[in-house]
């Protein structure tokens, strides 16, 4: 690649007038535009706060068994029940049945060797703290699966559509329009309801539903990016030397078009988790008692009239979900500023 050659001799004037700067290894790897996006993200205070929140949740997800060990080792995602009482118990009440082992942090911090319900229990004796901690794993799991799959589908559909253009493009984009007709949550709700009898109550119906109606956005973005890149000279050059269609598409165009979409997609995890929680709140998806935030929140639907007494059944899981989504949104908001074309070229 172009090596900047500096004439021999005293170059102080040259160095001062032309703003030559060191180009680091990462910048060379990503290219100037992508590098600008990355540094832009790492410099805004809001997005740093976002990264901290996300990091905290990643830590909780990884450390879940250390924070609160599963009661049944082979089924860690079912929330342990302290009895079957329909009435919620307030935070700090003693944990009597199905008590987990004491983790190492418990005695020094809580100054007791008896488990209590740190965030109280919900209807049916389900421990809220357990649901919140292990729900973090569920959130990342569903978020990652949905985002990766929708992204793959979106990339394939969008790039085929943009690369071939003409009638193919037209038909594919009309299909995308049709998928976009129904409101997202309603469409996902329907698809999940239709496939639930096939899969039984589990994570699958909601995940498939979110994938089924979630890929269209990416295919549109990728299509737009490819349309602009496909006219570049190096693509023409590749075509002239006889590279196959698929080769041009996958080796030359997509790698150059994909970075903004990748970043955008990785930040969509927050939205996906939110939609997933909404579906399970509506009663679609997992078995009752599965450690998943929407599920824990949906217990509150039976206690609307007494939420003044049982505030903890919505406040703790609700805040968890809010902080999780906010972490991704803070980074996403900074990203929107960085990707704004009017900002291009500014440091």
């Amino acid at each position, binding site marked *: 690649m172009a090596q900047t050659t500096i004439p021999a001799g005293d170059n102080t004037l040259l160095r001062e007038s032309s703003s030559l700067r060191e180009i680091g290894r990462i910048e060379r790897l990503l290219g100037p535009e992508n590098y600008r996006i990355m540094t832009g993200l790492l410099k805004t205070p809001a997005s740093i706060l976002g990264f901290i929140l996300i990091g905290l949740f990643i830590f909780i997800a990884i450390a879940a068994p250390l924070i609160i060990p599963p009661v049944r080792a082979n089924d860690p995602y079912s929330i342990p029940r302290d009895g079957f009482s329909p009435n919620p118990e307030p935070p700090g009440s003693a944990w009597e049945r199905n008590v987990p082992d004491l983790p190492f942090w418990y005695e020094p911090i809580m100054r007791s060797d008896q488990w209590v319900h740190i965030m109280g229990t919900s209807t049916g004796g389900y421990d809220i703290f357990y649901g919140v901690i292990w729900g973090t794993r569920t959130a990342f799991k569903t978020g990652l699966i949905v985002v990766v799959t929708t992204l793959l589908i979106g990339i394939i559909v969008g790039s085929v559509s943009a690369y071939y253009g003409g009638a193919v493009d037209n038909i594919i984009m009309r299909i995308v329009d049709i998928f976009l007709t129904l409101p997202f949550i*309603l469409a996902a709700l329907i698809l999940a309801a239709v496939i639930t009898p096939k899969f039984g109550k589990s994570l699958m119906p909601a995940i498939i539903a979110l994938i089924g109606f979630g890929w269209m956005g990416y295919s549109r973005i990728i299509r737009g990016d490819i349309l602009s890149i496909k006219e570049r000279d190096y693509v023409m050059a590749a075509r002239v030397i006889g590279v196959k269609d698929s080769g041009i598409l996958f080796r030359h165009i997509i790698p150059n078009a994909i970075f903004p979409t990748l970043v955008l997609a990785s930040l969509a995890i927050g939205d996906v988790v939110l939609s997933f929680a909404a579906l399970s709140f*509506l009663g679609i998806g997992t078995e009752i008692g599965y450690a998943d935030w929407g599920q824990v929140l949906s217990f509150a639907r039976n206690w*609307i009239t007494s939420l003044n007494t049982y505030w903890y059944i919505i406040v703790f899981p609700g805040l968890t979900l809010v902080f999780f989504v*906010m972490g991704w949104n803070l980074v996403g908001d900074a990203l929107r500023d960085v990707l704004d074309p009017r900002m291009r070229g500014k440091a």
Partner: protein
Amino acid sequence: MVTYIIRRLLIVPILLFGVTVLIFGMLQFLSPVQRSALYIRDVPKNDRAVEGVIKQYGLDKPLYVQYWKWLVGVEDSKTGERRGGILFGDFGYSRVASQPVADLIRNRFPNTLDLTLWAVAPVILVGIWLGVQAAVHQNGLIDQAARIFSIVGTSFPTFVFGLVVLMIFYANLEWFPPGRLSDWANRVVLSDEFVRYTRLLTFDALLNGRFDIFLDAMRHMILPILTLSYISWATFLRVTRSSMLETLRMEYVTTARAKGLPEKDVIYKHAQPNAMIPAITLAGFSIVGLLGGVVITETVFTYPGIGQAAAEAAAQLDVVTVLGFALFNGFILILSNLVVDVLYGFVDPRVRLS
């Protein structure tokens, strides 16, 4: 303009066809026996009856035959009566509500429409006003506050927000209950002397001269309206703010200022009308979205609109009902999007030509 409208009209049948195919496709996840539930009103007496239905509606035939029969229904060979057929408004029979899906929609839709009509003004006008203020005072206090509000706003899931306002305004303060009407009001509405002119509760109450019932209905709608406003404001704010900022940088705005016009006129008479175009599109789509029934908001507040009915049916796996709602929703959305697009063509001449 005429060609624009015609071009736009031509897309409608394609979209309608596409949506019916999409929903028909989802039906195919079910077995023929499950699909026969579309046409069965009572619990079938024996398996033979189910088989009869499957034969009659061709549920074991090739897909295109099934699709056609699903669209137009079949004629009873003895009575000549047409049964089924979504094109004729027969969306099947709802197991959960034990009534035809079409009747269920007819009962529920006025409630959703009522809510939409009252929610439109706070949702759209306040959202746009916030956006304009944020842009005019860019980086000022209002802008910063608006920015924080919009991040917190988009992070707060609808149902969490709904539960929180219920906790504060219902469980603690007992001001605004969920549901549609208080028991006493409901008795009046169901009685004979209350005439249902429009089927929209608030308007009927006014037409009947029952101001107390109007107030009671409004009392039940305040929290849903608050929730809907709050979830839309963040989006309106963002869109209006950025388009207003862009307009304020244009040269004609500088010209207006250079002429010595008061800043107020520059902003509200010169800049704002042009900055409103994206916000108008968004407004169109959000009205359409509200009409389609807001599933989560209606469910949290047990507001008996079509969104809540759809969610309830989905939770009980009553697929026929859910798909009926999807069809109705799809039709409404396609038609009202058409209206929005045409209106948009009037507002922004550039659209007609592209």
